[in-house]
């Protein structure tokens, strides 16, 4: 063609750059090798930590090229953009050509096509063209696929194909990557990720997101009713459980105990068990009874926090020992009565009646320490996630189409020979896995040849 000799315009050159597979290979290798950096340099740590590891000059350079958050840096994103543009241009360039070939297959086995096919066979038959064309068409339908019959210039051509879908595998796979990117962008734009601690018995309505820069209003209330930790007999953790309630309009609408790998979802917002800990200091539980044995209230003593008892005085828990004089856990209490000097004494948890010996009007017993826990929840909303899964499913389908299907084509040409017999040519080709096709072609060859004998 004439325009092939024309020197390419700058536009053509740019286009040729973006549709080249070499660019794809180079981009893939560059993406792979630069990605290594972010696995060696720990990402998104506080600056102090980096200063401990790296010299100032190294820190400055690394900070400059965003190496501490490289997967979100402009240069890395630009490489992903280049990758996507390459992918898209290749598709725009090749897909219509492929479609054209698939829609208008070469149904006639002419001389040049025959030469290009490595698998072929020829033989002669007595009879008429149409008779043998009919027989072979039937044989192909039965063992391979229904052929398309073309008559032209005294020749009859049969063409049959299977596995056309394999030609689309590449494009389905490439499209899936773009869909995954769209899903990821949608999630980043319209979703949020945050983390929140909720102490047992308390509620939250808002969550800090984007590393705490923003506050996200949930539109409902989440309460942590309780947190518990289960361990195996060996002491290894077995389960972290948070009993959560969703409260909306003053009413509990959902209640669920979540564990790791079993989150709670409400209105598109997911709550994941992520962490836990002790909320504030521990409180000492102390029961109070009268001297005659009538039980009274239970006090919750925080360290050094004075708690008044009407008509008696003020009680404070001042010290705690895990093993007091070999008698086990004990609490030191100070009682201040109006007009009297403060009295200090120890309550041993294992001996609730010990305080009777003091001969006071009230008897205190230490029931143990209790500490409130908090649960740490990962909170996420990602409206793009289903798009991502769609892309992933398409990718698997596309790969299977591309790798395990093969576009197999078979031609038969029938022509009247000079000796009056019918000259038959059988030829075939496969887009991939030629070894397997060779075997199939051999079978087909024997089958077709044996037809009508």
């Amino acid at each position: 063609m004439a325009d092939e000799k024309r020197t390419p315009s700058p536009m053509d050159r740019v286009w040729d750059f973006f549709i080249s597979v070499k660019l794809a290979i180079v981009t893939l290798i560059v993406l792979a090798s630069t990605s290594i950096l972010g696995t060696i340099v720990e990402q998104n740590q506080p600056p102090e930590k980096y200063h401990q590891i790296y010299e100032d000059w190294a820190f400055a350079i690394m900070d400059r090229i965003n190496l501490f958050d490289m997967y979100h840096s402009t240069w890395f994103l630009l490489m992903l953009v280049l990758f996507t543009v390459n992918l898209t241009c290749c598709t725009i360039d090749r897909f219509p050509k492929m479609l054209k070939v698939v829609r208008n297959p070469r149904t006639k086995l002419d001389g040049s096509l025959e030469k290009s096919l490595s698998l072929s066979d020829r033989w002669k038959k007595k009879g008429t063209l149409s008779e043998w064309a009919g027989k072979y068409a039937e044989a192909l339908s039965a063992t391979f696929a229904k052929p398309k019959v073309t008559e032209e210039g005294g020749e009859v051509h049969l063409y049959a194909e299977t596995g056309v879908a394999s030609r689309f595998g590449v494009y389905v796979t490439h499209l899936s990557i773009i869909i995954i990117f769209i899903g990821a962008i949608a999630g980043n734009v319209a979703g949020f990720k945050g983390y929140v601690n909720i102490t047992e018995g308390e509620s939250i309505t808002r969550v800090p997101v984007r590393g705490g820069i923003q506050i996200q209003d949930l539109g409902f209330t989440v309460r942590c009713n309780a947190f518990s930790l289960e361990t195996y007999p060996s002491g290894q953790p077995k389960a972290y459980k948070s009993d959560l309630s969703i409260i909306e309009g003053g009413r509990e609408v959902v209640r669920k105990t979540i564990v790791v790998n079993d989150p709670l979802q409400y209105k598109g917002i997911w709550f994941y068990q992520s962490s836990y800990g002790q909320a504030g200091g521990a409180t000492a539980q102390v029961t109070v009874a009268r001297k005659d044995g009538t039980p009274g209230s239970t006090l919750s003593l925080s360290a050094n926090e004075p708690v008044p008892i009407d008509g008696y005085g003020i009680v404070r828990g001042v010290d705690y020992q895990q093993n007091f004089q070999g008698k086990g856990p004990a609490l030191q209490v100070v009682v201040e009565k109006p007009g009297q000097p403060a009295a200090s004494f120890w309550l041993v948890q294992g001996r609730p009646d010990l305080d009777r010996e003091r001969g006071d009007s009230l008897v205190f017993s230490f029931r143990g320490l209790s500490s409130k826990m908090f649960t740490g929840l990962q909170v996420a909303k990602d409206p793009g996630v289903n798009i991502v899964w769609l892309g992933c499913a398409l990718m698997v389908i596309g790969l299977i189409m591309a790798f395990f299907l093969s576009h197999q084509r078979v031609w038969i040409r029938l022509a009247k020979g000079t000796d009056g017999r019918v000259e038959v040519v059988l030829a075939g080709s496969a887009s991939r896995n030629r070894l397997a096709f060779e075997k199939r072609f051999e079978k087909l060859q024997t089958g077709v040849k044996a037809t009508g004998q």
Partner: protein
Amino acid sequence: MSNVILFNLTTVLFGVASALYLGALYAKNEKISAFGTWVCFLAAVFSTAALGVRWYESYQMGIGRIPVTNLYESLVFFAWSVNLFYLVIERKYRNRTLGAFVMPIAFFTMVFAVYNDSSIQPLVPALQSYWLHAHVITCFVGYAGFAVSAGVAVMYLLKARQENAKISEGVVGLLPACKMLDELVYRAIIWGFPFLTVGIITGAAWANYAWGTYWSWDPKETWSLIIWLIYAAFLHARVTRGWHGKRAAILSIVGFLATIMCYLGVNLVLSGLHSYGGG
């Protein structure tokens, strides 16, 4: 425990099979390598039994979980996959010289496994999920495909050098033709690649269900992506002028080195969300 005894026996069998295949290549004796195939088959039976017994024993201990949850188990599962993958390829392509380059991978994996803690430990909360099965199994079948591919790629490079020099002698002379090796490098990858892809996807789905994010650029995730990118480059290289053949074979070997890094290096050298895998 009896599963460990069975695994130790498997290790010995892998060693014997490797020796037989290498010996056959050296002595140019097809009969020796046929014997190697039987040893591989026996090793497959033993290691499958060992995995089953280990699974059963975990139930006996009241833990009850699939045996693919720590370094020891993943190593033996990897060796098991390589062996099966190899047997299928050997049968399909009727060439036993491959064994000399693939079975040592299974053998050294098992030797490495023996040096790791083989006790059955209960699952930490993060691993208690059905996604575990799909994720780990697909990843390791993928890794096995890459291991086989890299073994054959080494053969390709040796053979290609000889074919270029137009000589055909010594041990290398016995290797299959370059065309066949090139095809095998590719065939192993087109099985490994979809499995790795499904492995990454199931990992992402699991991460999303456990942590609320399907991708967090954790070192393990990133390395799995690096492997994926390298093999994607391989697949494109193979259909590009100037890139198929030698360069594609090198990409296959680099891909397997990256796989080893992802599998072992990340746990042993780097820290991250997958740290329990190093136990």
